[in-house]
C-alpha cells in the first residue's frame, strides 16, 4: 500500500468514526427515552396526576410535585424576569464603557459558571435563615431566580443588541428621552428574543433539584401548597426520591414522573425555538 492510499484509508476510517460519534449521543438519547416510556408510560393515568404522595408506590401520585413545579415556575418568572431584563437593559443601553461595566460583565459570566448547588447554599443562608422564609416556595423561587439571572441578562443583551442603531436615532430625533426610546422602541423590537431567553432559562429552572434540596424542599409534602410561604416539593425532587428507593415499583413511578418532567422541559424548549424562528422571520431590518 502506498502512503497516499494509507492516508485515504485513514481519512475514510475517521469519517466512519465521525458518523458513529455524531449519532452515538442521539442513539443513547433515543434508547433512553424509549426505556423510560416503556417503563413509565403505563403508570401514567389520571390518578397518578391527581394523587398525593404515598408510602405505597401504587397509590402514590405527583399532584404536589407538579403543582409545586408550577408555583416555582410562576414565582421565579415574576422575580427573575423584571430583574434580569432591567439589568440587561442597563448594561446594554445605559452603562458607558468603563471599568465598572467591564467588572459587571466578568462577574455575570462568572455567576453563570457557579454550580447550582452553591446557589442552594446561598439561598439556605440568606432566604431560609436570615429572611426566615424557611423551606418555602418563595425561598425556592428566589434561589432559582438568582440561578437563572445570568442567562436572562445575557440573552436580553443579545436581543437588545440586534435592534439597529437607526431605530434609536429615529426616536431620539423626535425628542424621545432615553427611557422612552428603550420602552417604546428597543424593548418591543427585541421582545421576541428576550422572551426566548426567559423561556430557556425557565426550562433550566424547572429541571433543577439540587439547590432546592439544599434549601430544604421536602420530598414528602402531604398537601398542595396554597401560598408562596408554604412548604413544597417539585417534580425533580420527587423523581430523585423515588429513584433512591430500592423497590422496583418506585422506579416505575420515577419513570412516569420523568415523562411528565420531560414533556414540560421539551415544551418550554420547543416554544423558545419556535419564538426564535418566528422572530427571525418577522423582522428583517
Amino acid at each position, binding site marked *: 500500500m502506498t502512503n497516499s492510499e494509507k492516508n485515504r484509508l485513514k481519512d475514510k476510517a475517521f469519517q466512519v468514526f465521525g458518523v458513529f460519534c455524531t449519532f452515538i449521543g442521539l442513539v443513547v438519547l433515543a434508547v433512553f427515552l424509549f426505556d423510560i416510556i416503556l417503563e413509565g408510560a403505563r403508570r401514567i393515568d389520571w390518578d397518578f396526576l391527581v394523587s398525593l404522595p404515598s408510602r405505597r408506590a401504587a397509590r402514590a401520585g405527583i399532584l404536589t410535585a407538579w403543582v409545586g413545579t408550577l408555583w416555582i415556575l410562576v414565582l421565579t418568572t415574576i422575580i427573575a424576569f423584571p430583574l434580569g431584563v432591567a439589568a440587561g437593559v442597563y448594561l446594554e443601553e445605559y452603562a458607558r464603557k468603563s471599568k465598572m461595566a467591564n467588572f459587571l460583565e466578568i462577574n455575570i459570566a462568572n455567576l453563570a459558571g457557579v454550580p447550582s448547588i452553591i446557589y442552594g447554599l446561598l439561598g439556605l443562608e440568606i432566604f431560609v435563615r436570615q429572611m426566615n422564609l424557611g423551606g418555602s416556595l418563595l425561598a425556592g423561587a428566589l434561589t432559582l431566580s438568582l440561578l437563572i439571572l445570568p442567562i436572562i441578562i445575557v440573552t436580553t443583551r443579545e436581543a437588545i443588541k440586534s435592534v439597529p442603531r437607526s431605530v434609536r*436615532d429615529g426616536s431620539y430625533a423626535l425628542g424621545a428621552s432615553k427611557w422612552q426610546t428603550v420602552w417604546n*422602541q428597543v424593548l418591543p423590537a427585541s421582545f421576541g428574543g428576550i422572551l426566548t431567553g426567559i423561556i430557556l432559562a425557565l426550562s433550566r429552572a424547572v429541571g433543577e433539584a439540587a439547590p432546592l434540596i439544599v434549601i430544604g424542599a421536602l420530598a414528602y409534602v402531604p398537601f398542595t401548597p396554597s401560598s408562596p410561604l408554604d412548604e413544597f416539593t417539585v417534580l425533580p425532587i420527587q423523581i430523585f426520591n423515588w429513584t433512591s428507593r430500592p423497590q422496583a415499583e418506585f422506579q416505575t413511578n420515577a419513570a412516569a414522573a420523568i415523562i411528565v418532567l420531560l414533556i414540560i422541559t421539551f415544551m418550554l424548549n420547543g416554544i423558545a425555538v419556535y419564538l426564535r424562528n418566528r422572530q427571525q422571520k418577522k423582522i428583517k431590518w
Partner: protein
Amino acid sequence: MSRKHNKLEAINLDAYYGDFHALKGINIAMEEKNVTAFIGPSGCGKSTFLRTFNRMNDYIDGFRTEGDILLDGKDIYTKEVRVDELRKEVGMVFQKPNPFPKTIFENVVYGLKIQGISKKAVLEEAAEKSLKRAALWNEVKDNLNKSALALSGGQQQRLCIARALAISPSVLLMDEPASALDPLSTAKIEELIYELKNDYTIVIVTHNMQQAGRVSDNTAFFYMGELVEYSKTKTMFTSPQDTRTQNYITGRFG
C-alpha cells in the same frame, strides 16, 4: 416683506471625537425658511456638523464641542436647554429610511405620543395633516394600520419626513435623505423639499451636486473639517472662490 432673521448659527465651532478634531472653527449663519445644502467629500464632517444642531452627537462617547451653536439666537449647548424640547423644534431625517417596526399611524404619531398627547382625535388629525404635507397621504390613507416596514424605500423616507413634521418643528435637518432611493423617489423628495421651504428652515447634506443646485438657496462646502466656502448656490456653482471648491464641484475629487 421683512428681512429674514438668522435661524441657525455656528460661532467658532470646534468638535472632537476623543482626540480627533472633526470640525475646525466653523462660522456660519442660516436664514429662516431657506434651504441650505452641505456638500463636501465624505468624511469631511457634514453629518457631524448637521447633528450638532439637534445635539444627536450627545450619545457618542468622547464627543465634545467648543464654541456656540445658536437656534433663534440662543445657545443650545447650555445646561438650561432640554434636548427633548430642542428636538421638537429641530426635526431630523436620516440617510437610510428608519421607520419604527410599527404601523404607519404609530410611526407618525410617535413624537406626539411621547409628549403625552393621547387623544385619538388629535392624533388622527395630526397624522393626516403630516402625511398630506409629506405627500404620502394618498398612498397610505387606507392602510394606516399596516406595518411601516412594508412600504417601499421612497415611501418609508416620506413617512420619516411626515413623522418629523408631526411634532411641528421649525427646522428640518436632512442627512443625504435621498441617497438610498431610486431616481423617481428622489425626485419626489426634492419636490417635497421645495414645498416645505415655505414653512421650514431646511438644512440638507447631499453628495449630489445637481441636487444641491436644484433644491438649495445657499450652499456650504466643507473640506476636512473646515467650512471652505459658503455662498448663494448659484454663485458657488458658477464662480467658486476657493480652488478646493472648484476642484470638488468639477468632480476632480470626492
